[in-house]
Protein backbone atom coordinates (compact mmCIF):
# COMPACT_ATOMS: atom_id res chain seq x y z
CA UNK A 1 0.00 0.00 0.00
CA UNK A 2 2.79 2.43 0.86
CA UNK A 3 4.36 2.36 -2.60
CA UNK A 4 0.87 3.00 -3.91
CA UNK A 5 0.56 6.14 -1.80
CA UNK A 6 3.98 7.29 -2.94
CA UNK A 7 3.00 6.99 -6.60
CA UNK A 8 -0.18 8.90 -5.81
CA UNK A 9 1.77 11.69 -4.17
CA UNK A 10 4.20 11.66 -7.07
CA UNK A 11 1.39 12.08 -9.57
CA UNK A 12 -0.16 14.89 -7.55
CA UNK A 13 3.17 16.68 -7.40
CA UNK A 14 3.73 16.08 -11.11
CA UNK A 15 0.37 17.53 -12.11
CA UNK A 16 1.02 20.59 -9.96
CA UNK A 17 4.59 21.29 -11.01
CA UNK A 18 6.01 22.92 -14.10
CA UNK A 19 5.24 26.26 -15.63
CA UNK A 20 1.57 25.78 -16.37
CA UNK A 21 -1.25 24.08 -14.55
CA UNK A 22 -2.63 20.96 -16.18
CA UNK A 23 -6.21 20.24 -15.21
CA UNK A 24 -6.83 16.64 -14.13
CA UNK A 25 -8.08 14.39 -16.91
CA UNK A 26 -9.84 11.00 -16.91
CA UNK A 27 -6.38 9.50 -17.56
CA UNK A 28 -5.52 10.18 -13.91
CA UNK A 29 -7.82 7.33 -12.97
CA UNK A 30 -5.67 4.71 -14.70
CA UNK A 31 -3.39 3.27 -12.03
CA UNK A 32 -1.76 -0.01 -13.04
CA UNK A 33 0.23 -1.45 -10.16
CA UNK A 34 1.46 -4.61 -11.82
CA UNK A 35 1.55 -5.60 -15.47
CA UNK A 36 2.72 -2.44 -17.20
CA UNK A 37 1.12 0.88 -18.08
CA UNK A 38 -0.20 -0.09 -21.52
CA UNK A 39 -1.47 -3.50 -20.53
CA UNK A 40 -5.31 -3.45 -20.43
CA UNK A 41 -5.24 -6.54 -18.16
CA UNK A 42 -2.91 -4.93 -15.62
CA UNK A 43 -3.65 -5.36 -11.95
CA UNK A 44 -4.75 -1.86 -11.04
CA UNK A 45 -5.18 0.20 -7.93
CA UNK A 46 -9.00 -0.12 -7.89
CA UNK A 47 -8.62 -3.91 -8.13
CA UNK A 48 -6.48 -3.79 -5.01
CA UNK A 49 -8.99 -1.51 -3.29
CA UNK A 50 -11.82 -3.89 -4.20
CA UNK A 51 -9.95 -6.90 -2.80
CA UNK A 52 -9.19 -4.92 0.33
CA UNK A 53 -12.85 -3.95 0.73
CA UNK A 54 -14.03 -7.53 0.32
CA UNK A 55 -11.57 -8.69 2.97
CA UNK A 56 -12.56 -5.86 5.27
CA UNK A 57 -16.31 -6.49 4.94
CA UNK A 58 -15.88 -10.24 5.45
CA UNK A 59 -13.72 -9.68 8.52
CA UNK A 60 -16.13 -7.10 9.95
CA UNK A 61 -19.27 -9.18 9.43
CA UNK A 62 -17.70 -12.30 10.93
CA UNK A 63 -16.12 -10.46 13.84
CA UNK A 64 -19.23 -8.48 14.75
CA UNK A 65 -21.65 -11.40 14.58
CA UNK A 66 -19.57 -14.31 15.85
CA UNK A 67 -20.57 -13.71 19.44
CA UNK A 68 -24.05 -12.45 18.68
CA UNK A 69 -25.98 -11.63 21.85
CA UNK A 70 -29.49 -10.49 22.62
CA UNK A 71 -28.03 -7.31 24.05
CA UNK A 72 -25.74 -6.37 21.15
CA UNK A 73 -22.23 -5.02 21.42
CA UNK A 74 -21.39 -1.82 19.55
CA UNK A 75 -20.12 -3.65 16.46
CA UNK A 76 -23.07 -6.00 16.36
CA UNK A 77 -25.41 -3.02 16.72
CA UNK A 78 -23.91 -1.31 13.68
CA UNK A 79 -24.14 -4.48 11.59
CA UNK A 80 -27.74 -4.96 12.69
CA UNK A 81 -28.63 -1.38 11.79
CA UNK A 82 -27.19 -1.73 8.29
CA UNK A 83 -28.80 -5.12 7.81
CA UNK A 84 -32.09 -3.77 9.15
CA UNK A 85 -31.99 -0.86 6.72
CA UNK A 86 -31.47 -3.15 3.74
CA UNK A 87 -33.88 -5.83 4.91
CA UNK A 88 -36.77 -3.71 6.14
CA UNK A 89 -36.73 -0.32 4.48
CA UNK A 90 -35.37 -1.48 1.11
CA UNK A 91 -36.21 -5.14 0.48
CA UNK A 92 -39.43 -5.52 2.46
CA UNK A 93 -40.97 -2.18 1.54
CA UNK A 94 -40.15 -2.43 -2.16
CA UNK A 95 -40.39 -6.13 -3.05
CA UNK A 96 -43.21 -6.93 -0.63
CA UNK A 97 -43.38 -9.21 2.38
CA UNK A 98 -44.18 -12.35 0.36
CA UNK A 99 -40.88 -13.08 -1.36
CA UNK A 100 -38.37 -10.44 -0.33
CA UNK A 101 -36.32 -12.70 1.91
CA UNK A 102 -34.41 -14.54 -0.80
CA UNK A 103 -33.17 -11.28 -2.30
CA UNK A 104 -31.88 -9.84 0.97
CA UNK A 105 -28.41 -11.47 0.65
CA UNK A 106 -27.95 -9.97 -2.83
CA UNK A 107 -29.13 -6.54 -1.74
CA UNK A 108 -27.07 -6.59 1.44
CA UNK A 109 -23.94 -7.60 -0.51
CA UNK A 110 -24.51 -4.83 -3.04
CA UNK A 111 -25.10 -2.23 -0.35
CA UNK A 112 -22.10 -3.04 1.82
CA UNK A 113 -19.73 -3.55 -1.11
CA UNK A 114 -20.68 -0.29 -2.81
CA UNK A 115 -20.78 1.66 0.44
CA UNK A 116 -17.31 0.55 1.57
CA UNK A 117 -15.81 1.04 -1.88
CA UNK A 118 -17.34 4.50 -2.17
CA UNK A 119 -16.14 5.53 1.27
CA UNK A 120 -12.65 4.42 0.29
CA UNK A 121 -12.74 7.37 -2.08
CA UNK A 122 -12.13 9.77 0.81
CA UNK A 123 -10.48 7.60 3.48
CA UNK A 124 -6.91 8.96 3.48
CA UNK A 125 -4.48 6.10 2.82
CA UNK A 126 -6.67 4.67 0.05
CA UNK A 127 -8.50 7.62 -1.53
CA UNK A 128 -9.66 5.90 -4.64
CA UNK A 129 -13.36 5.29 -5.31
CA UNK A 130 -13.34 1.89 -7.00
CA UNK A 131 -16.55 2.65 -8.84
CA UNK A 132 -14.90 5.51 -10.74
CA UNK A 133 -13.55 2.87 -13.12
CA UNK A 134 -16.54 1.88 -15.19
CA UNK A 135 -15.70 -1.85 -15.20
CA UNK A 136 -16.67 -2.25 -11.57
CA UNK A 137 -20.20 -0.79 -11.70
CA UNK A 138 -20.61 -2.63 -15.00
CA UNK A 139 -19.92 -5.97 -13.31
CA UNK A 140 -22.35 -5.18 -10.50
CA UNK A 141 -24.99 -4.06 -12.98
CA UNK A 142 -24.52 -7.25 -14.98
CA UNK A 143 -25.39 -9.29 -11.88
CA UNK A 144 -28.51 -7.19 -11.25
CA UNK A 145 -29.50 -7.37 -14.93
CA UNK A 146 -29.27 -11.16 -15.04
CA UNK A 147 -31.06 -11.54 -11.70
CA UNK A 148 -34.10 -9.43 -12.48
CA UNK A 149 -34.61 -10.95 -15.91
CA UNK A 150 -34.19 -14.52 -14.68
CA UNK A 151 -36.62 -13.81 -11.85
CA UNK A 152 -39.13 -12.38 -14.31
CA UNK A 153 -38.85 -15.22 -16.82
CA UNK A 154 -39.17 -17.81 -14.06
CA UNK A 155 -42.22 -16.18 -12.58
CA UNK A 156 -44.17 -15.39 -15.77
CA UNK A 157 -42.73 -17.68 -18.43
CA UNK A 158 -41.20 -16.34 -21.66
CA UNK A 159 -44.29 -14.81 -23.30
CA UNK A 160 -45.81 -13.91 -19.96
CA UNK A 161 -42.80 -11.88 -18.93
CA UNK A 162 -42.75 -9.92 -22.18
CA UNK A 163 -46.48 -9.35 -21.77
CA UNK A 164 -46.10 -8.25 -18.14
CA UNK A 165 -43.95 -5.32 -19.29
CA UNK A 166 -46.98 -3.64 -20.85
CA UNK A 167 -49.27 -1.75 -18.52
CA UNK A 168 -52.88 -2.93 -18.66
CA UNK A 169 -55.92 -1.08 -19.93
CA UNK A 170 -54.38 0.47 -23.03
CA UNK A 171 -56.14 0.81 -26.39
CA UNK A 172 -54.96 -1.81 -28.91
CA UNK A 173 -53.60 0.75 -31.36
CA UNK A 174 -50.82 2.01 -29.08
CA UNK A 175 -49.76 -1.41 -27.77
CA UNK A 176 -46.86 -1.93 -30.22
CA UNK A 177 -45.36 1.48 -29.47
CA UNK A 178 -45.67 1.01 -25.72
CA UNK A 179 -44.17 -2.44 -26.03
CA UNK A 180 -41.14 -1.08 -27.88
CA UNK A 181 -40.70 1.67 -25.30
CA UNK A 182 -41.05 -0.68 -22.36
CA UNK A 183 -38.73 -3.19 -23.99
CA UNK A 184 -36.05 -0.52 -24.38
CA UNK A 185 -36.61 0.53 -20.78
CA UNK A 186 -36.16 -3.01 -19.47
CA UNK A 187 -33.24 -4.02 -21.64
CA UNK A 188 -31.29 -0.84 -22.33
CA UNK A 189 -32.18 2.16 -20.20
CA UNK A 190 -32.32 0.43 -16.83
CA UNK A 191 -28.93 -1.29 -16.86
CA UNK A 192 -27.31 1.67 -18.61
CA UNK A 193 -28.57 4.22 -16.11
CA UNK A 194 -27.89 1.96 -13.13
CA UNK A 195 -24.28 1.54 -14.21
CA UNK A 196 -23.62 5.08 -15.35
CA UNK A 197 -25.23 6.68 -12.31
CA UNK A 198 -22.85 4.99 -9.90
CA UNK A 199 -19.87 5.49 -12.19
CA UNK A 200 -20.70 9.10 -13.02
CA UNK A 201 -21.23 10.20 -9.44
CA UNK A 202 -18.03 8.63 -8.17
CA UNK A 203 -15.99 9.73 -11.18
CA UNK A 204 -17.23 13.33 -11.20
CA UNK A 205 -16.90 13.72 -7.45
CA UNK A 206 -13.36 12.42 -7.42
CA UNK A 207 -12.37 14.52 -10.43
CA UNK A 208 -13.70 17.60 -8.64
CA UNK A 209 -11.66 16.83 -5.53
CA UNK A 210 -8.62 16.23 -7.71
CA UNK A 211 -9.15 19.59 -9.42
CA UNK A 212 -9.47 21.61 -6.21
CA UNK A 213 -6.56 19.90 -4.49
CA UNK A 214 -4.10 19.99 -7.41
CA UNK A 215 -5.11 23.58 -8.23
CA UNK A 216 -4.61 24.62 -4.61
CA UNK A 217 -1.28 22.82 -4.61
CA UNK A 218 -0.18 24.56 -7.80
CA UNK A 219 -1.27 28.02 -6.68
CA UNK A 220 0.38 27.62 -3.28
CA UNK A 221 3.71 26.38 -4.59
CA UNK A 222 4.04 28.16 -7.92
CA UNK A 223 1.79 31.22 -7.82
CA UNK A 224 2.43 34.82 -6.82
CA UNK A 225 1.44 36.06 -3.36
CA UNK A 226 -2.14 36.76 -4.47
CA UNK A 227 -2.41 33.26 -5.90
CA UNK A 228 -1.15 31.81 -2.62
CA UNK A 229 -4.08 33.52 -0.86
CA UNK A 230 -6.55 32.16 -3.41
CA UNK A 231 -5.23 28.64 -2.85
CA UNK A 232 -6.75 28.79 0.65
CA UNK A 233 -10.15 29.07 -1.02
CA UNK A 234 -9.34 26.13 -3.26
CA UNK A 235 -8.41 23.97 -0.28
CA UNK A 236 -11.54 25.11 1.56
CA UNK A 237 -13.63 24.02 -1.42
CA UNK A 238 -11.81 20.68 -1.42
CA UNK A 239 -12.77 20.28 2.25
CA UNK A 240 -16.42 21.19 1.62
CA UNK A 241 -16.62 18.87 -1.40
CA UNK A 242 -15.10 16.04 0.64
CA UNK A 243 -17.88 16.45 3.18
CA UNK A 244 -20.40 16.52 0.34
CA UNK A 245 -18.82 13.39 -1.12
CA UNK A 246 -19.60 11.47 2.08
CA UNK A 247 -23.28 12.25 1.54
CA UNK A 248 -23.13 11.30 -2.14
CA UNK A 249 -21.32 8.05 -1.36
CA UNK A 250 -23.97 6.94 1.13
CA UNK A 251 -26.74 8.06 -1.21
CA UNK A 252 -25.33 6.18 -4.21
CA UNK A 253 -24.96 2.93 -2.27
CA UNK A 254 -28.55 3.34 -1.05
CA UNK A 255 -29.86 4.23 -4.52
CA UNK A 256 -28.15 1.32 -6.25
CA UNK A 257 -29.67 -1.10 -3.74
CA UNK A 258 -33.07 0.60 -3.90
CA UNK A 259 -33.15 0.44 -7.69
CA UNK A 260 -32.05 -3.20 -7.68
CA UNK A 261 -34.97 -3.96 -5.37
CA UNK A 262 -37.31 -1.89 -7.55
CA UNK A 263 -36.31 -3.75 -10.72
CA UNK A 264 -36.72 -7.13 -9.04
CA UNK A 265 -40.10 -6.02 -7.71
CA UNK A 266 -41.28 -4.93 -11.15
CA UNK A 267 -40.21 -8.27 -12.64
CA UNK A 268 -42.14 -10.06 -9.93
CA UNK A 269 -45.26 -7.89 -10.12
CA UNK A 270 -48.36 -9.80 -11.16
CA UNK A 271 -50.13 -7.12 -13.14
CA UNK A 272 -49.37 -3.54 -13.89
Amino acid at each position, binding site marked *: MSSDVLTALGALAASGSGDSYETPT*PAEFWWPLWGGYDNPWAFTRPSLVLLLSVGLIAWWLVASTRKAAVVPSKGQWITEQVYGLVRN*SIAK*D*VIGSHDFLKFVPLLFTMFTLILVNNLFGIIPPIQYPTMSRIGFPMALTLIVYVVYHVVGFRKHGFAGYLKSMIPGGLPKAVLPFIFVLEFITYYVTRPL*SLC*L*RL*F*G*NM*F*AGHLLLLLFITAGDYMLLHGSIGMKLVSVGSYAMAFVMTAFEILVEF*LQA*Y*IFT*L*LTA*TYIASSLADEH
Partner: protein
Amino acid sequence: MLGGNIAILGYGLSAIGPGIGIGLIFAAYINGAARQPEARGMLQSIAILGFVLAEALAIFGLVLAFVFKAA
Protein backbone atom coordinates in the same frame (compact mmCIF):
# COMPACT_ATOMS: atom_id res chain seq x y z
CA MET B 1 -5.34 31.04 -23.42
CA LEU B 2 -8.43 29.13 -22.57
CA GLY B 3 -8.53 25.53 -23.72
CA GLY B 4 -11.31 23.07 -23.43
CA ASN B 5 -13.73 20.75 -25.04
CA ILE B 6 -17.03 21.84 -26.54
CA ALA B 7 -18.56 18.52 -25.47
CA ILE B 8 -18.55 19.87 -21.90
CA LEU B 9 -21.17 22.43 -23.02
CA GLY B 10 -23.42 19.46 -23.73
CA TYR B 11 -23.12 18.51 -20.10
CA GLY B 12 -24.17 22.02 -19.12
CA LEU B 13 -27.24 21.75 -21.33
CA SER B 14 -28.11 18.28 -20.12
CA ALA B 15 -27.93 19.47 -16.50
CA ILE B 16 -30.69 22.08 -16.96
CA GLY B 17 -33.60 19.66 -17.23
CA PRO B 18 -32.60 17.41 -14.32
CA GLY B 19 -31.85 20.49 -12.24
CA ILE B 20 -35.40 21.78 -12.67
CA GLY B 21 -36.85 18.31 -12.27
CA ILE B 22 -34.99 17.55 -9.06
CA GLY B 23 -36.04 20.92 -7.70
CA LEU B 24 -39.68 20.14 -8.39
CA ILE B 25 -39.41 16.68 -6.85
CA PHE B 26 -37.92 17.93 -3.60
CA ALA B 27 -40.34 20.86 -3.49
CA ALA B 28 -43.18 18.34 -3.61
CA TYR B 29 -41.47 16.23 -0.96
CA ILE B 30 -41.04 19.19 1.40
CA ASN B 31 -44.65 20.21 0.82
CA GLY B 32 -45.86 16.71 1.56
CA ALA B 33 -43.69 16.31 4.65
CA ALA B 34 -44.79 19.71 5.97
CA ARG B 35 -48.47 18.93 5.54
CA GLN B 36 -48.28 15.41 6.83
CA PRO B 37 -45.15 14.85 8.94
CA GLU B 38 -46.00 11.19 9.65
CA ALA B 39 -45.79 10.35 5.91
CA ARG B 40 -42.18 11.54 5.81
CA GLY B 41 -40.53 8.10 5.71
CA MET B 42 -42.67 6.88 2.86
CA LEU B 43 -42.30 10.13 0.92
CA GLN B 44 -38.54 10.09 1.36
CA SER B 45 -37.95 6.86 -0.54
CA ILE B 46 -40.34 7.98 -3.29
CA ALA B 47 -38.58 11.35 -3.52
CA ILE B 48 -35.16 9.70 -3.75
CA LEU B 49 -36.43 7.32 -6.42
CA GLY B 50 -37.75 10.24 -8.46
CA PHE B 51 -34.54 12.14 -7.87
CA VAL B 52 -32.34 9.35 -9.24
CA LEU B 53 -34.52 8.88 -12.30
CA ALA B 54 -34.33 12.61 -13.07
CA GLU B 55 -30.62 12.65 -12.35
CA ALA B 56 -29.90 9.92 -14.91
CA LEU B 57 -30.06 12.40 -17.79
CA ALA B 58 -27.46 14.65 -16.24
CA ILE B 59 -25.21 11.66 -15.65
CA PHE B 60 -25.58 10.60 -19.29
CA GLY B 61 -24.55 14.11 -20.27
CA LEU B 62 -21.53 13.99 -18.02
CA VAL B 63 -20.35 10.64 -19.33
CA LEU B 64 -20.94 11.56 -22.97
CA ALA B 65 -19.05 14.80 -22.44
CA PHE B 66 -15.98 12.69 -21.78
CA VAL B 67 -16.77 10.08 -24.42
CA PHE B 68 -17.07 12.42 -27.41
CA LYS B 69 -13.79 14.22 -27.81
CA ALA B 70 -13.97 17.29 -30.04
CA ALA B 71 -11.23 17.45 -32.63
